């Protein structure tokens, strides 16, 4: 399945994307040279902590931020570079071919419009449906995401929905035009843990139903496990590691990924086992160190000073398609998550 997908041309192909914000304090390098492909029908997860640039990257692909400066790169969508597209044509892709699900459905939905109307609007914009037909479509979509009594719910307002239902409504809105790619930016972060699982389940079911790819953006590796086909880990606006989910979870090579995996709370861990944090604070996107952005926090820094001097390029790690940006890849061969965890707890 993965082999087949790999041979087909990618749906979305991002190359060396750099998205900067010019602020009074300096240039914020929110996205600093990211490249990746999303293939038709796959779940591509982007993992990183707050401020790692994943959301800016997503909204830049959508062409949403007004203040961002695209310093370089291309975002190829079905062969066309979205960054070069005139706004009017980019708009026709937005929502119809690439749709986005936002983090906080309460603020992302308009409080003064009925939910059904907001969903139907998508069809009205892109398919020119009448108000009536759009209303019927909205009910259909609400039904599809598993909202009971969809016809009644469609006439309600966002504040009358529970958090989980709002996010379902958000999903219903995004899939109205059966997009080829759904970008879900932290779709479950604002939700209760119990509801998170339901919403993710809906998302995955829908994906199969409308046959779209999903770019799942999250800070939570736990969410990604079991859902994603491929995972990209970002740090300080750069890709540090990318690979298939099994490769990444079982044969992670980058020290940051290893740290993330080691810091996950485990079921079945002993009660007194402490959580293992990654030492230090996330890198500033303004004063980016010249070498590897992670090197001040890394416990595998090479002795020859390369890590602080030169920026590591992505290299093949354990298998084709599994890339990591680290100077010490070879030395890390054989380092397991368990050993990082033990080192972190001092046991």
């Amino acid at each position, binding site marked *: 399945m993965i082999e087949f997908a790999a041979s087909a041309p990618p749906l979305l192909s991002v190359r060396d994307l750099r998205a900067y914000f010019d602020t009074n304090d300096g240039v914020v390098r929110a996205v600093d040279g990211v490249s990746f492909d999303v293939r038709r029908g796959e779940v591509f997860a982007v993992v990183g902590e707050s401020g790692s640039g994943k959301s800016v990257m997503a*909204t830049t692909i*959508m062409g*949403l931020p007004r203040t961002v400066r695209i310093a370089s790169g291309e975002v190829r969508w079905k062969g066309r570079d979205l960054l070069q597209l005139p*706004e*009017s044509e980019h*708009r*026709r*892709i*937005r*929502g*119809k071919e690439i*749709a*986005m699900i*936002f983090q*906080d459905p309460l*603020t*992302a*939905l*308009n*409080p*003064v*419009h*009925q939910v059904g109307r907001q969903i139907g*609007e*998508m069809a009205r*914009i*892109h398919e020119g449906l009448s108000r009536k037909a759009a209303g019927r479509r909205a009910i259909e979509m609400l039904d599809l995401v598993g909202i009971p009594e969809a016809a009644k719910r469609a006439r309600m*307002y966002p*504040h*009358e929905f529970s958090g989980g239902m709002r996010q379902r409504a958000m999903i219903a*809105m995004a899939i109205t035009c059966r997009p080829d790619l759904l970008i879900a930016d932290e779709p479950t972060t604002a939700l209760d843990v119990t509801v998170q699982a339901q919403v993710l389940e809906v998302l995955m079911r829908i994906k199969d139903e409308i046959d779209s790819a999903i770019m799942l953006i999250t800070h939570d590796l736990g969410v990604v496990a079991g859902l994603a086909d491929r995972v990209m880990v970002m740090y300080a606006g750069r890709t540090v590691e990318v690979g298939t989910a099994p490769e990444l979870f079982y044969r992670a090579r980058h020290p940051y990924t290893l740290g993330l995996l080691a810091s996950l709370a485990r079921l079945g861990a002993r009660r007194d086992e402490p959580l293992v944090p990654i030492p230090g604070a996330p890198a500033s996107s303004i004063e980016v160190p010249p070498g590897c952005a992670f090197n001040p926090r890394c416990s595998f820094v090479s002795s020859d000073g390369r890590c602080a001097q030169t920026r590591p390029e992505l290299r093949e790690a354990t298998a084709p398609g599994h890339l990591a940006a680290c100077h010490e890849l070879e030395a890390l061969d054989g380092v397991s998550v368990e050993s990082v965890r033990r080192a972190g707890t001092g046991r």
Partner: protein
Amino acid sequence: MFRYIVRRILLIIPTIFLALSFLFALFFVLPGDPATLMAGGANRIVDPGVVERINERYGLDDPLLVQFGDYWKRTLQWDLGESFQNRRSVNDILGDKAVNSVRLAIWATLIEVVFGISIGLLSAMRRYSISDKLTTVVTAVASAVPVFVLGFLLQYAFAVQPHKHGWPDWMRLRTQGIGPNTWTLFFIPTGQTWRYLVLPAVVLAAGSTALAARMTRGSMLEVLGADYMRTARAKGLDGHQAVWHHGLRNAMLPVVTLIGIDFGLVIGAAVLTEKTFSWPGLGSEIADSVISRDLPVTMGLTLVVVLAFTVVNLVVDVSYAWLDPRIRLGQDRNS
């Protein structure tokens, strides 16, 4: 929605009861014994016999509660008493003045709505442009300049100057009074009346228009940064569609409240404008009656202003609920 409106209308009853009670208290709190005032005024020595007869005739010696009851009875029958000054019925005085006031208020509010909102919207959408900065300065000045200063300046520019330099007749505006006082559809001036209406309406609207513009700008800027506006663009709407379909209604919420309050204010508190242009309205009449201690007139006219405020507030609340479902439905569920 229907239940909300009914509940809101029922709320008017206690509001009016309270307002009337305050007005009644006013009668006793204001300096000067009513009977003495009626007999000739506060500054002259009056015949005690006359005072006594007046007290008797108007029941001013009765216990307070009885008087309160009488006052209620009269007011509910829409008998507002008569002026101490000239025995003119307050109902008659009201008839002329209230209508003039409401006409002026309608035009001032129309100016506020049309210019305040559109200027504010343009300002917000072209934030930090030259026109935005200019608007900020002009609105700050407009809300700071006293009404009479602005009034005299405009009188000079649009009435005195044209007259001096013999400008064509259609460019000349009038500065005093209400002119022929002819109207169609209640508020649209006919004949020459518009020449008399323009300046007072503009002056009366100036301050509130500036405020409305500033508030619209601020509110719109806040809305433009809202998550749902980003959602709207992520759907594929262009900037203008997003503002029109998703931004406007949210941005108008605070502005509607402001405009409602302003409409009440320009009915009752347009004293300075009315004085400057000799516009025969309620505000100047109330001011006059307070100065001459003409209590029935003060009370009767104030009552009408209170009623106007109540009705306008009702309209504001209903439109607010119409604009924002969170208010309408939140109320329904909690009841």
